[in-house]
């Protein structure tokens, strides 16, 4: 855009720009007080028996040692692993949807279907969560009513109230998982594949499934890597839907680290330990974020939604 680079851009050297520092002050104060200070104080107080209202005693690594013996904490990470693995496997459906939509010859049809498919994204997360909570309801919920209507009333379940089914029910919320970033990325990438590639493949007699595996997926590799890491970071912070639909229960079957941290802090009022858990989550996310930046740097054109 700007044809004249650096030389013209630094014309105000001669004066000491005290007003520049003054102008940066509001941002500096807000970020310092509400971003840096809490993050650092959380790490600091994770080494204390933190009593926000009064005296806090230094306890060294006690909180972290406790974490090692906290079965619920590790169990919540196991649940997180299940959630992560499932969310990756579930990308098959958005991928299929993107292949279907990009196969339409008419651009109008492509646009119409992709808009309808991502429309659920426009609804607030809480609305989606509450509608699904209703679908799983044992008495008048949509799923049990559908089973009864099909004469399969015996299969009706207390979906989120049964410890064996609660996790599965939670995972299936948002089915068919199309309205989200994975679909958008698959769709944009497929649209950006040059026509000639597919024509050449067709001349060589390449079937559709073969095309997906040998052409489409390798072409999307960079975006796929990015998606995987975004999914990792997103999964670590998972908790909102579980809180609304199952509350982490029944019998901690759907407990995730975030909810465990909240119950330690707000029910047990064990702030020092909660700070340690929070620091641990923070460290996990930070390490994973660094990996993302590393991967992103390797990709020349990261996701470009403007191409939609």
């Amino acid at each position, binding site marked *: *855009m*700007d044809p*004249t680079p650096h030389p*013209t851009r630094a014309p105000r050297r001669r004066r*000491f*720009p005290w007003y520049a520092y003054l*102008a*940066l002050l*509001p*941002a500096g104060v*807000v*970020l310092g007080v*509400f*971003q*840096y200070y*809490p993050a650092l104080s*959380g790490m600091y107080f994770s080494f204390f028996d933190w009593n926000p209202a009064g005296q806090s005693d230094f306890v060294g690594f006690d909180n972290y040692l406790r974490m090692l013996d906290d079965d619920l904490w590790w169990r919540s990470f196991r649940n997180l692993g299940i959630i992560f693995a499932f969310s990756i496997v579930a990308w098959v459906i958005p991928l299929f*949807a993107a292949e*279907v*939509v990009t*196969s*339409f*010859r008419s651009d109008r049809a492509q646009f119409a*279907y992709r808009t309808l*498919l991502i*429309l659920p*994204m*426009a*609804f*607030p*997360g*809480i*609305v989606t969560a*509450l*509608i*699904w909570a209703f*679908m799983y309801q044992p008495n008048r919920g*949509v799923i049990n009513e559908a089973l009864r*209507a099909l004469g399969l009333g015996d299969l009706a379940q207390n979906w989120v109230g049964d410890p064996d089914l609660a996790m599965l029910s939670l995972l299936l919320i948002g089915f*068919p998982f*199309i309205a989200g*970033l994975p679909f*958008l990325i698959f769709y944009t990438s497929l649209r950006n594949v040059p026509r000639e590639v597919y024509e050449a493949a067709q001349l060589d007699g390449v079937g559709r499934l073969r095309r997906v595996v040998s052409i489409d997926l390798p072409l999307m590799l960079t975006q796929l890597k990015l998606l995987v890491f975004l999914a990792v*970071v*997103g999964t670590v*912070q998972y908790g*909102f839907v579980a809180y609304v639909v199952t509350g982490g229960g029944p019998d901690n079957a759907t407990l995730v680290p975030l909810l465990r*941290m*909240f119950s330690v802090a707000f029910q047990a009022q064990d*702030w020092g330990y*909660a*700070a340690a858990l*929070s620091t641990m*989550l*923070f460290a996990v996310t*930070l390490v994973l*974020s*660094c990996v993302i930046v590393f991967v992103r740097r390797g990709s020349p054109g990261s996701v470009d*939604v403007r191409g*939609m």
Partner: protein
Amino acid sequence: MAVLEATAVKSPSGTRARGQARPPRLRGSRPQWGLHIAAVVLVLVGLGPYIFMLTTSFKDNQQFAESYWLPAFPLRFENFATAWTQISPYLLASVIVAAGSIVAIVAISLVTGFVLARYRFVGRTFFFTMVAALMMIPGIASLIPLFVMVKDMGLINTYLVLMIPHISGGIVLGTILMKTFIEGIPQTLFDAAQLDGAGGVRIFASIMLPLSLPVVGTVGLITVNGVWNDFFWPLLTITQNELRTASVGLLFFQSQSGTNYGPMFAGYLLASIPLVLLFTFLSKYFLAGVQGGLPGSH
């Protein structure tokens, strides 16, 4: 040359000859029924729950019991009136929080981005690095210490406490977007203004503000989306009913509704309308916002 011309002449007739037997092209004019069926099934499965919400929101309890699946007539518009009296305070609170946050974010990040893009001074790179580094810090990780802090400050149950995470998060993204945008504005524009005797403040108000409206729009949309979907922070910091924002308010509304499913779904629908409208009319910016705000939106 002659050979080249010969092939050049030959090739169109050649393609025409092949055109007699070009099944791919011929198939091209036929509607793609299989694909349409697959796509329609996917759309219906995806939108099914929302369609159920729509039809049920117009039913009273008797209609809900008698006709569970199909729409029932007459439509009970009064469900929406019932729901509105209960959830309008939550939507109002969300609007106030979003508006306040947007004003603060735009004001602060415009100034910060402008200064970082157009002035040279010691510590400029350091400051920007410190801002950009915050992109990596997930809001949820510092939630507990932040809560303890605002509680000590006596900010529980205020609009301000609801705005704080949005402002401090929005400034980070806003500053980065603004700085990049302002660096793209030609320097000649600023030089011309300076020649005409405009000072820093005047340049900011007469050139920067009007030019940066698209960025302001993007930041605003991301903020509205963030406020509407924010859940744990208002859940923890607000106990007063009239200060509850959309997400937490709707959860409370659901627990109050009992088995009055019609008004319950009407309330869900009303709470969705603002975001659905934004999505419909500003879909491009909305998608950009989803992309920027993905980690942590769950």
